[in-house]
């Protein structure tokens, strides 16, 4: 049953099947290539579209392999977040002591799912380059395809775990707001956060393998300085004024608060200027990550 589920999910997400399907013949490389010492490449959507077949196949590989030979298979995509939600939800409700425990619980659940999306994108992207060194040291293709494909895999896990949120949402009797249509934007923002920072670390990882120890520590620490277990309100009310700005330099503050605002409406966003700061930091990290990646991309093979 898991197998079928796995299969259909992969069709759903990667739109395409392994079985033959007619399509247009495309040539992947230009008919004229010029290689010289100074040529450099930069992020280009055209190139990514050209290699989308590879992108899909790499993502499909990672996804299929992830739950192979696991008894519970894809159920792990549900079990892992579920345990986190139960533990941290319980802690949050106990400490907040709020009257509306159910709402508090759903609130924490939404933040945890988003944080897990961020942490898995961040972690997987930062390890993706060295993990696929055997590929790009043998065959040429745009290396950005590798981290992009890991995002697709993290997204599948995320969508599966969204089932938990939907169930909790209904059980706790929440009402829908119009803002819900904006929710995908904040999911995208979360991915971009993980992608930007992850690319930066993926580049460092090529030369310094310390990254594989640093990233888990950052993820763990980051969770306690982001509005995951407690809301932004909870933190800011307890922090001195000067520390507010520092708190908001965390790009995940904007993403999580925005996502909560879409789901529950109301005052999830503490202060719009803090929110905007956080958004700016997100894009700054993304630009730095991409620039840094492309600066060294061509020489990865020599350092791996």
């Amino acid at each position, binding site marked *: 049953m898991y197998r079928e589920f796995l299969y259909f999910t992969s069709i759903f997400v990667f739109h*395409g099947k*392994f079985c*033959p*399907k*007619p*399509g*247009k*013949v*495309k*040539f*992947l*490389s230009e*008919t*004229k*290539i*010029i*290689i*010289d*010492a100074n*040529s450099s490449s930069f992020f280009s959507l055209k190139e990514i579209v050209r290699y989308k*077949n*590879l992108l*899909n*196949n*790499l993502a*499909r*590989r990672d996804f*299929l*392999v992830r739950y*192979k*030979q696991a008894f519970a298979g894809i159920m792990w995509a549900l079990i892992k977040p579920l345990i986190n939600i139960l533990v941290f939800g319980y802690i949050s409700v106990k400490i907040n002591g709020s009257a509306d425990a159910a709402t508090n619980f759903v609130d924490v659940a939404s933040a945890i799912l988003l944080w897990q999306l961020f942490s898995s994108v961040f972690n997987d992207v930062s390890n993706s380059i060295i993990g696929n060194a*055997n*590929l*790009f*040291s*043998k*065959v*040429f*293709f745009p290396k950005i395809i590798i981290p992009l494909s890991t995002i697709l895999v993290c997204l599948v896990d995320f969508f599966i775990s969204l089932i938990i949120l939907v169930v909790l949402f209904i059980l706790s009797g929440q009402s829908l707001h119009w803002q819900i249509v904006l929710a995908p934007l904040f999911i995208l923002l979360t991915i971009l956060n993980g992608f930007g920072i992850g690319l930066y670390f993926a580049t460092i990882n090529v030369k310094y393998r310390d990254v594989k120890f640093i990233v888990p520590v950052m993820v763990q620490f980051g969770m306690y300085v982001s509005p995951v277990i407690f809301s932004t309100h909870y933190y800011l009310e307890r922090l001195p004024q000067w520390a507010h700005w520092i708190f908001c330099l965390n790009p995940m503050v904007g993403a999580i608060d925005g996502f909560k605002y879409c789901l529950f409406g109301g005052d999830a966003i503490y202060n719009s200027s803090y929110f905007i700061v956080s958004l700016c930091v997100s894009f700054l990290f993304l630009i730095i990550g991409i620039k840094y990646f492309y600066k060294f991309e*061509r*020489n990865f*093979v*020599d350092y791996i």
Partner: protein
Amino acid sequence: MNNDFVIKVEGLGKKYLLNANLQERSDTLYGNVINNIKNLKNIGNKKQTEEFWALNNVSFNIQRGDRVGIIGRNGAGKSTLLKILSQITPPTKGRIEINGRIASLLEVGTGFHGDLSGRENIYLNGSILGMSKHEIDKRFDEIVDFAEIEQFLDTPVKRYSSGMYVRLAFGVAAHLSPDILIVDEVLAVGDSTFQKKCLGKMEQVSETEGRTILFVSHSIETVLRLCNKGLLLEKGQLKTAGSINEVTRSYLDTKSGVSSFKSWEKDERPGNDITKLISVKIHNEKDEVNEEYDIVKPIGVTMEYEVLKDGEVFTHSYNFYNENGINIFNTHDTVSEERTKPRKKGVYSTTMWIPGNLLAEGAVLVNVATIKIEPFTILMHEKECVSFTVIDYMRGDSARGNYILGFPGAVRPLCQWDTKYKG
């Protein structure tokens, strides 16, 4: 627009930085800490790195449809060149223009994942190698046929035998349809049937489909068989470019430094006051001096020498060595009439015939001598003065039969075989 070249390389160079402290590096954590402390003192000094040019100032053109063998010793820069051409690593200097779609096969089975089935791996590997989904669909059956894995298509490849694995991997790669195919030592894997199949496939690709192939191999035999053009790299420099025979010759020469014919000026002739060597040549039955000789035909070795004293009795001798320095065989004249007669002054010529189907393929170096048997004295002994290459033209009439791959051994006689059914 000049369109008849597919690859144009100008002044290509690739520099690597070597850490000069590398020898001092310790294997232990303690040693490393001590070294780091030592290095702290050197802060502010120039970084101790050494430049190493894996390739330097390499320029060449490759025409459409050529099959180019890239040869050179280990560390000559062959693999670096292929890596730069296939855009895996960037050059430090120079410029390359490539007309056409390029695919590199630097390793068979790149990107295979053991947990995925054969079918899934065909699609994955195909897309890694740059095939579109449609192309893979079109060639799917051909690939499966080539790999002979029909009944195992849905088995994870980690359960495959290594033979099946390699066949599948090469199958995907061989059915690529690039204009330029770069192949690096892929034939080192797999059994002989498989290797034969791969070679055949590559020949077909280049001959019937007119594609350009760049091929690196350490096997001169394979290169000679598959390629028509060659590039010889030495210490990162391009030494020779041209026809494959010229280039392999030059490669073997760099090992031996001599050719099939050698003569000496009057006052440089080797020898003593009795005999002096004038010239030595290797030739075939038609008395043609070549660099290569057919393995099934007799090969003549002729020396011309001058006798400076009347009345001396001596005989002639040759020693043969292969490229690995192994003494293949020695021979001295025990049959000619002249050997027992006291000689008159003058110029003599003596020819010895090596029978066909005796030497193995490869380079052969020849030592020439004149000797007295009773008592044993060496009058003249010139080492490694000529060399030649024995080639099997793969017509099936040699000791190879129809076998075309690696065939070790210092000699290769065509032996008599008898097999009887004993019940």
